């Protein structure tokens, strides 16, 4: 996970970089406010940010405010660090949009771990939401496809009833009918995923419709045996 450290003090940056790298973070460092804003404006920029409150140019409070203003759907986790530790300072920091305002290094370490957890959860939620959207759209599409599929497969079936087996186009019509039926199977499977099995099948980023067994389509299979 990427983390941005904005601190004008070289020693602080070096210490934090060493510790955070050891924890497995991909650490980016900047020495002032404008550089911090520039860094987070990059695509795929760090979601976890450690801001020094006292920096030249733009201070941590102002950077924090601007970061919050520019935020869209996925908020950053911002930790403000400072030597100023009065109640009023904390309130200022939190009001500017900081998530945490730790007073010492132990607390900072704990807050960074919290931040990592929160960002991780947010990432998962966003990924799941995106997948759900895609799967739902696929389901809606299948519903629409079933109408023309019905017409194609039934028309092919009717043609096959009229044609002699040795008729020139018999095999071709049979091919159309067979593949329309295959498409029908696919739409049923996709609809089963979207309506019944979404969560079960969204354990990863791949939804394998062919991996669905017949039990994956409980209500759809109801009545399909021709016995009313």
């Amino acid at each position: 996970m990427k983390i941005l450290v904005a601190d004008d003090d070289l020693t602080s940056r070096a210490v934090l970089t060493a510790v955070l790298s050891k924890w497995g973070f991909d650490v980016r460092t900047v020495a002032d406010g404008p550089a911090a804003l520039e860094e987070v404006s990059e695509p795929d920029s760090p979601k976890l940010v450690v801001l020094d409150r006292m920096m030249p140019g733009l201070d941590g409070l102002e950077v924090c405010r601007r970061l919050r203003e520019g935020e869209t759907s996925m908020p950053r986790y911002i930790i403000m660090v400072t030597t100023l530790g009065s109640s009023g300072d904390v309130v200022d920091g939190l009001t500017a949009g900081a998530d945490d305002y730790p007073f010492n290094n132990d607390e900072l370490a704990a807050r960074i771990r919290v931040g990592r957890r929160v960002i991780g959860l947010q990432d998962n939620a966003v990924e799941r939401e995106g997948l759900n959207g895609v799967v739902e759209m696929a389901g809606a599409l299948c519903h629409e496809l079933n109408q023309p599929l019905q017409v194609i497969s039934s028309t092919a079936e009717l043609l096959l009833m009229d044609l002699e087996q040795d008729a020139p186009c018999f095999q071709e019509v049979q091919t159309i009918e067979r593949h329309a039926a295959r498409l029908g199977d696919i739409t049923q499977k996709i609809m089963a995923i979207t309506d019944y099995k979404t969560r079960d099948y969204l354990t990863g980023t791949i939804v394998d419709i062919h991996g669905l067994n017949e039990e994956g389509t409980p209500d759809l299979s109801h009545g399909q045996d021709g016995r009313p």
Partner: protein
Amino acid sequence: MREKKILIVDDEPDIRNVFQKALSRAGYTVSSAASGTDALEILKTEQILVMFFDLNMPEMDGLELCRRVRKDLPTALIYAVTGYASRFQLTDFQEAGFDNFYSKPIGLALLRSVADAAFGQMEGRTGRTPGPC
């Protein structure tokens, strides 16, 4: 032989057409309607007791149509044939009064066998033996 009548209700003309052809070839007398309102009109003048309804139709959907038909024809056999089966719960179909439901695309052989079984059930109720279709 007594005429075996079936009503098809679907807002898609091509689907009405293929279902009608398939069932006519199987010996049934098929009426079709493009909407719930048209279907209710047909049922005022024709005595039909086996029906296939699409669900997703403008104005009156298949569930509503089934509820209304059920009031007057409690013994009719009414089946839903829909591309949207998975959007509904089994209880939705039961509550509306459908005897069963089928997903589109439905094979014509299955459609015919449902019709055959429906008339078989009807004949059984009235004590007549099922005639050839």
